[in-house]
């Protein structure tokens, strides 16, 4: 990532970061990572965008680089194909680890607007995509059943977790 080739200042590390991450059960596997890089070798995004590097993200978490990891745009560049997990010799569930990191970053306002807006959409219509008039009509033409398009109950659940309060700094 941006850190490549630069020295890491120990004073800038947060020894509690890893503990905060593995406090989430879904991310506990990260402690098993021994940085072999099989994940990175298997990653189709890394092949196109070398800055996206699962091994490096895991290493940064284990070192306690809280600020660098959570503010990094690259944690959002995973296409979630799970090739990393498929090949990991330590059975690290990197998809879950990354989700925990993204959740933490989202609370600090780093989530891309596209994901934040999807939550709004679900609260309004119950689904991720807007059900515009043209599509409603198309479905009628194809004799497909109408969509309810009601997000009230989903909105209640979303509000109960505080996910509706998440904003994007962008």
């Amino acid at each position: 990532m941006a850190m490549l080739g630069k020295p890491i200042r120990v004073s800038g590390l947060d020894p509690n970061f890893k503990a905060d991450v593995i406090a989430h059960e879904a991310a506990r596997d990260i402690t098993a990572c021994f940085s072999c890089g099989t994940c990175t070798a298997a990653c189709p995004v890394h092949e196109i965008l070398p800055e996206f590097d699962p091994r490096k993200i895991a290493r940064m978490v284990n070192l306690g680089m809280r600020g660098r990891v959570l503010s990094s745009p690259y944690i959002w560049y995973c296409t979630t194909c799970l090739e990393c997990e498929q090949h990991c010799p330590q059975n690290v569930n990197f998809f879950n680890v990354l989700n925990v990191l993204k959740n933490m970053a989202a609370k600090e306002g780093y989530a891309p607007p596209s994901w934040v807006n999807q939550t709004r959409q679900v609260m309004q219509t119950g689904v991720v995509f807007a059900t515009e008039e043209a599509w409603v009509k198309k479905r009628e033409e194809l004799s497909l059943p109408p969509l309810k398009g009601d997000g009230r109950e989903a909105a209640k659940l979303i509000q109960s977790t505080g996910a509706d309060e998440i904003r994007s700094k962008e």
Partner: protein
Amino acid sequence: MGCTTPTRVPQYELSTRWICKRFGIELIDIEDFVCCGANQINISIETGLLLAAMNLALAEIQDLDIVTLCPWCFTALAAGVEELKKQEVRGKVNKQLSTIGLEYNGRTRVKHVSRVLYEDIGLDRIREEARRDLSKIQVAPHYGCRYLKPQWASEGFDEPNDPKTLHQLISATGATPIDYETLNLCCGGKVFPVSEDLAHSLIAKKLDNLQDKEVDCMVLLCQTCYLMYATQQEKVSKKSNNQYNIPVLLYPQLLGLAMGADPVADLGINLNVPSVDKVLAKIGKDL
């Protein structure tokens, strides 16, 4: 039916409903279903699980299992089933579900439609019903990520490193599946909302590979993969100065063609981009 298919890829829904009817599978729509939570986990894992649980609870009330068209819905709901086996988690989730009058007791089962076709209908029955001759059609299968992974979600249904089931499902229609180097490459659909360029690069890699193979079409089982390889194909062509023209069919459309369905009325093939005309011409069927 999920979020994307009903409005963005209705031909997937239309053709699946036709296939199911022909095989005697009764699909019961639950109109209160909401988003499965697959995308919400990006910003809140807890929210994703609650939405999955809401859908599982809605199916449970009617004593129904869930069949999904979307592989993302499948894994999000399957992950919900797994997570909610833990009494402590279920108790907490049910407390929140009770605010909307729901409760989940762990009875709902979830399958992707591909697995229903493969396991519950079976290749033999598909072969019997596939009467139209598709033998001239060379097909590139695209499995997509959630069809195969995580493997536990579909209880070892297929082998992610060397998948076979879609090849077999295609063969059963009479068409010929091919092998190609980028078979397991991801479509980039889940990074598309964050970076179109990155998704386009991933799409181009597979289309380049397939152009060299001179296949008649791609066949896949995910509406997001469809949106990437089909809907985005023209844009990717322009960006890469490479004029791709690879028709993309959803598997139920291919199966429907083999079973004698009307391509437009039953399968919505006129909605596919790029045009599927060349494939239809090869099997002696015009739009």
